[in-house]
């Protein structure tokens, strides 16, 4: 069974099976973004906040590949730093719910029946409610707050919100898998025979659950980035002065008739990033299908 997990992980990194085309394209896109984000200090001015008020709303030029915004800030630099920030929040915004959800899923399956049922019901309700509306209210009411450890202003409430609402999908995945494995005759026999529970989880539940979870994780990063951008646009995400894709679109909306690329570029980056991630997830899904 460990084999399955290894082959699932293997599937993520090899390029010679079903769905490889999609995965390869996805990797290329995401690789490009990761490279851009990491190389930020060398390929940009390195100062996303530096204003040049004499050179506002400049057209693209060699010095400013994407021109400048209303405050004369270099848009290319801001875009690269926005990719950095969005990517980081996207990954954290996927990872935290994934961890919480997986734990809840496993715990739920091991709980007494009434608690297990109550958790499922709660998950149903969270799914059926207008989640994002609610999220917006939450992020708005909490306010951006200020820096907290490694998190910049506005990041913590968003991650909190992602975690509170996003755990559901992961919990369902793990819970279903747990119930499936625990219902198996030989597993029940093994547990009665003294096989410790953690061995069952690590050896039998995880290998199968990891594959499906990975598929969803890929899409989920994209969705988290999209949600972050949307919240920033609505004014309930990270403050507008920080470089963020949604915030950049929001800030440039008033100059769209003259400098439309200030709006177009961040959105295109977002769509491309999401597509790359979804392609990886899709290809992986193709590969995991029997």
């Amino acid at each position, binding site marked *: 069974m460990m084999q399955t997990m290894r082959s699932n992980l293997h599937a993520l990194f090899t390029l010679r099976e079903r769905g490889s085309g999609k995965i390869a394209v996805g990797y290329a896109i995401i690789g490009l973004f990761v490279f851009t984000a990491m190389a930020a200090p060398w390929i940009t001015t390195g100062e996303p906040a530096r204003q040049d008020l004499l050179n506002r709303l400049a057209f693209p030029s060699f010095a400013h590949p994407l021109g400048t915004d209303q405050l004369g800030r270099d848009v290319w630099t801001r875009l690269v730093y926005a990719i950095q920030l969005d990517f980081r929040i996207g990954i954290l915004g996927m990872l935290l719910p994934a961890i919480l959800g997986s734990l809840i899923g496993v715990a739920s399956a091991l709980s007494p029946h009434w608690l297990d049922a109550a958790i499922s019901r709660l998950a149903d*309700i969270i799914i*059926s*409610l*207008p*989640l*994002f*509306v*609610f999220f*917006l*209210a*939450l*992020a*708005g*009411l*909490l*306010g951006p*707050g200020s820096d907290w450890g490694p998190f910049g202003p506005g990041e913590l409430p968003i991650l909190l919100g992602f975690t509170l609402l996003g755990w559901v999908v992961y919990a369902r995945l793990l819970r279903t898998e747990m119930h499936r494995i625990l219902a198996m005759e030989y597993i029940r026999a093994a547990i009665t025979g003294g096989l410790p529970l953690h061995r069952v989880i690590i050896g039998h539940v995880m290998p199968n659950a990891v594959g499906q979870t990975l598929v969803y994780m890929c899409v989920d990063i*994209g*969705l988290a*980035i*999209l949600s972050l*951008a*949307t919240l920033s*646009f*609505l*004014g*309930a995400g990270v403050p507008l002065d920080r470089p963020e894709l*949604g915030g950049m*679109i*929001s800030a440039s*909306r008033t100059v*769209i*008739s003259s400098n*439309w690329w200030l*709006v*177009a570029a*961040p*959105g295109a980056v*977002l*769509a491309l*990033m*999401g*597509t790359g991630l*979804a*392609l990886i997830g*899709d290809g992986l899904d193709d590969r995991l299908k029997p």
Partner: protein
Amino acid sequence: MGFKAGNRSDHLAWRLGGWLAQLAFSILILVLIVFVLTQVAPGDAARLRLGPRASQEEVDVLRKQLGLDQNILVQFGSYVGRLARADLGTSINGEPVSEVIRQRIDKTWWLLVGTSVFSLALSFPLAWLSAYYRDRAIDHVIRFAVLVALFMPVFWIGFLLIRFLALPTGWFPVAGLGSSPMELLRSLVLPCLTGAIAMAPILVRSLRSSLIEVISADYVTVARSLGIRGSALLFRHILRNALGPTIALFSLNVGYLFFGIVILETTFAIHGLGSQLVTASIKKDVNVVQAITIIFAAGVVLANSCGDLVVRWLDPRQGSR
């Protein structure tokens, strides 16, 4: 047949009760969460109302008036009590919340109806093409386009449509909703089109698979074997059976649609409930936020229930037991 009809209404009564219970439970949870949020939200409600210049004494008096000095359980109890009496309280500006909602709800309603119509008008043909020509080039193109569209921010689509469609042609107003029926329709086009593009990724995928299921159903082959073709085949044998799944799918995604409306209202400067929710939550106008979230949640539960009802009504198999 009589007894069957009786059974049916019994059955309905049960379901109706179920929906009401679900609605009540959902709202209770929602109220609870929103209430807890308002407690942990930074800033003092009384201070927010009076502004930074008010003296501490004035704030204390208001705190007493609002019951903020009592313990949390008492506050929650009186809050639920007021809600039960349909007393939504007042906004930060002192305006009754019910009035705030009354002024804005029609705009949100029009947007909701328009976006629903546009969404189906866009997604259904795409899903049909994709299902009919499955695994051919056009199917791959549609599926890829839909995948990309999933990650396009709604407001971004809106701004691009404004810049490249509305501004050059001048056909559509780019902000607000018109008041006369014609103007209203004209001003709805852009936001509803934007909403439809944003809904497409969610609808097309599932619609495609349920259409494939119907197209390849045995009874369609049977109909074809009898020489039935053209519109009779399409409408009586295929689309009639695709109607139920389509409605079910749409009503399931109403929650997503509501959030789309919030963004659309902000993007196109339409003063409806959605944009009000955004401003109220940023201003920490708790009563307004609570009221609007509850309305949206009720709308979603209601839409789910109505969808369920229509699907049952359409499907003869659900009628009798």
